[in-house]
């Protein structure tokens, strides 16, 4: 395992790692606002079309949504364990846990795409995919459009998170990351927790509040 290289501009390794962590937190804050805009849209449209939203969300399978929630929460737990173990210099175990978390990410996406497939078969589509003739009333379509866009944007974040976890896992497996160098693992973990937290908001909005 190699120690952290200290960049010229920093006084100490502690400050350098503090900077990396702080940068990640500000980035996460920025990401929150990205989804924040969508939550605002959801709130406005739901207030506008309470009954139509109800109808739109009836197509969503609570079971699948809940299983996916459990999958993501479990993956966040394994990521947290990985960060814990890499700090204790047990890099191989951390690599294993990160690999497992990435696999949970894959599981999440597989379930999500099974769901998307169902929706397509049942013609539950975003607005642009309808021909004007047979589309349900506007409010219902809006519920579905938001569902598709918000979950798809979240799925993109899952993919980005998996890439980060994968990088961290490879680094741990090669013992590049360990007790004295774990900021990459920590930051990837932070990002993954954001992905998880966003889903924890999407879950009630699209599966429970029907």
């Amino acid at each position, binding site marked *: 395992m190699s120690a952290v290289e200290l960049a010229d*501009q920093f006084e100490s390794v502690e*400050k350098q790692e503090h900077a990396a962590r702080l*940068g990640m937190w500000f980035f996460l804050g*920025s990401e929150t606002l990205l989804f924040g805009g969508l939550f605002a849209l959801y709130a406005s449209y739901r207030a506008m079309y309470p009954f139509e939203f109800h109808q739109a969300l009836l197509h969503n399978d609570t079971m699948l949504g809940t299983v996916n929630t459990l999958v993501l929460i479990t993956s966040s737990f394994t990521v947290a364990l990985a960060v814990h173990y890499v700090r204790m210099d047990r890099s191989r175990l951390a690599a294993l846990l990160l690999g497992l978390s990435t696999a949970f990410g894959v599981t999440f996406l597989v379930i999500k795409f099974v769901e998307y497939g169902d929706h397509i078969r049942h013609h539950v589509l975003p607005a*642009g995919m309808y021909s004007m003739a047979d589309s349900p009333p506007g*409010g219902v379509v809006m519920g579905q459009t938001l569902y598709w*866009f918000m979950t798809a944007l979240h799925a993109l974040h899952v993919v980005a998170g998996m890439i980060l976890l994968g990088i961290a896992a490879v680094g741990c497996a090669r013992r590049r990351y360990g007790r004295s160098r774990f900021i990459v693992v920590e930051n990837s973990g932070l990002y993954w927790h954001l992905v998880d937290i966003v889903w924890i908001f999407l879950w009630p909005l699209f599966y429970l509040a029907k």
Partner: protein
Amino acid sequence: MSDATLGMDADARMDPRGAGATHPDYMRAESGLRSWLLTKDHKRIALMFYGAVLLFLGLGGIFALILRTELLTPEATIIDPATYNQMFTLHGVTMVWLFMIPAIPTVFGNFALPLMLGAKDLAFPRLNLLSFYVYVASAVIILGAMVAGGADTGWTFYVPYSSTSPTAVTWMGIGIFVNGMSSIMTAINFVVSTHTLRATGLRWQRLPLFVWAIYGTSIIILFATPVLGLSLVLVALDHGLGLGIFDPRYGGDPVLFQHLFWFYSHPAVYIMILPAFAVISEVVCTYSQRPPASYRAIAYSSLGIAFGGFFTWGHHMFVAGMSEFDAGAFGGLSMFVAIFSAIKVFTWVATLRGGSIAFQTPMLYFLWFLFLFVFGGMTGVAVATQSLDVHWHDGYFVVAHFHFIMVGGTLTAFLAGAHYWFPKMFGKLYDERVGLVASVAVFIGFVFTFLPQFLLGNAGMPRRYYSYPPQYQWLNVLSTGGAWLLGAALLLALVNLVVALKWGRRAGPNPWGSRSFEWITSSPPSKHNFDVTPIIERTPYDYHLSEEDARERSRAS
């Protein structure tokens, strides 16, 4: 400092060329195209941004001149109506996203912020370089979209027109989204650097005011840009794939787009003006050789503007269907932000009192800034009043108002900064007389361009119209003449600086006698800015100390 030098007097101990002058400066430290394109040095990245934003200022300026020339006569002059619609969109998009938002932070922020912190670089140099290339990529996408069909929606991209326009709105939207990513990268870098890279003894209360304002700007960028990126991506998907989130046929509400858009774009106004405040605060203290009348008032009002700016977006939508209560609330909140701006203006003016004022080029720009910004700000308070806004909405009054802030404020401050930091960036002095003449010409050109537009707007001329009744012509002729004068003056200022690059006299480390920290190091600075991290034992505005004492209390050799 070695023991051998301790016995000498304070002046001789310091290298008169500034700290670190024994090393080759950052422009000569490495050579070859590769050493520029792959540099991680914040100063070189600043220069690359400088070149890029000047290019887009020129491009946006040419669009503006074409527009103004077209408006010389009530009917067709040089372009057809469709081209006119494209032209004002391109002018807006280029000026807002490719010049105004990045200009001061990425050029002077990148260059001066680490120097002011006493740091060797920003916290994430690679991210900084990436930010430049992402900016270039966004410019390429936007320019590509201009060539591949342009856009005729105006820079605001209002739906439903933008989702049905036959022009290249999709790519425009994607380009602006990518541009936002570049802004966010720069903002994260500035915020984190301010938190982690301050030199020993450089407490928050000792930071130059420039740093406070750039910090405030970065916070706004971080929290507003994602919302804009999102709303333009939604418009792009609406336009390209028929996503339909704002499409009334599918239950969408076009007014919601306006809410999302202005939630970003109103704070974006502060993204554009806070960096101007940053430059102005430095200029006014240096050229009056006085500390700011109230450091805290200027520093905290930046944060107040950054925060308050998020709650005023509704004042753009008074005629888009809004309840009396909402309109009153948004109007009131907008005026609340004006209080912070007024605090700044009064503090700058009070700073002049009792100072020994030097009327050099940047200081002259400061005076124009003061006059134009107050004018623009006061008309802003007027348009924040619903009853008045209903008359002025979508007319030339609004155009004149925001150009007073954006051009009279930000561009003027950009010019002040370009002259103020010129010796530090390039180690040369520009010709003061030509600089002063160009500055006066900029002011006169500006007033002739935009003052008539207030009158046009009040008389009822709508914005973005290709033709107008003949009685508006004389004011339009004045405005067009002013625009050409403004263009020529800007060109003169640029030529003056370019000439100085080659033929200017050599500048010392601190030609203006400033106490701010970027002037401790040599001009131009060496690659690593300071040989050792400076130890700061004073504020950046300690004008009661002699220059020698000031240097002694910010040791960097």
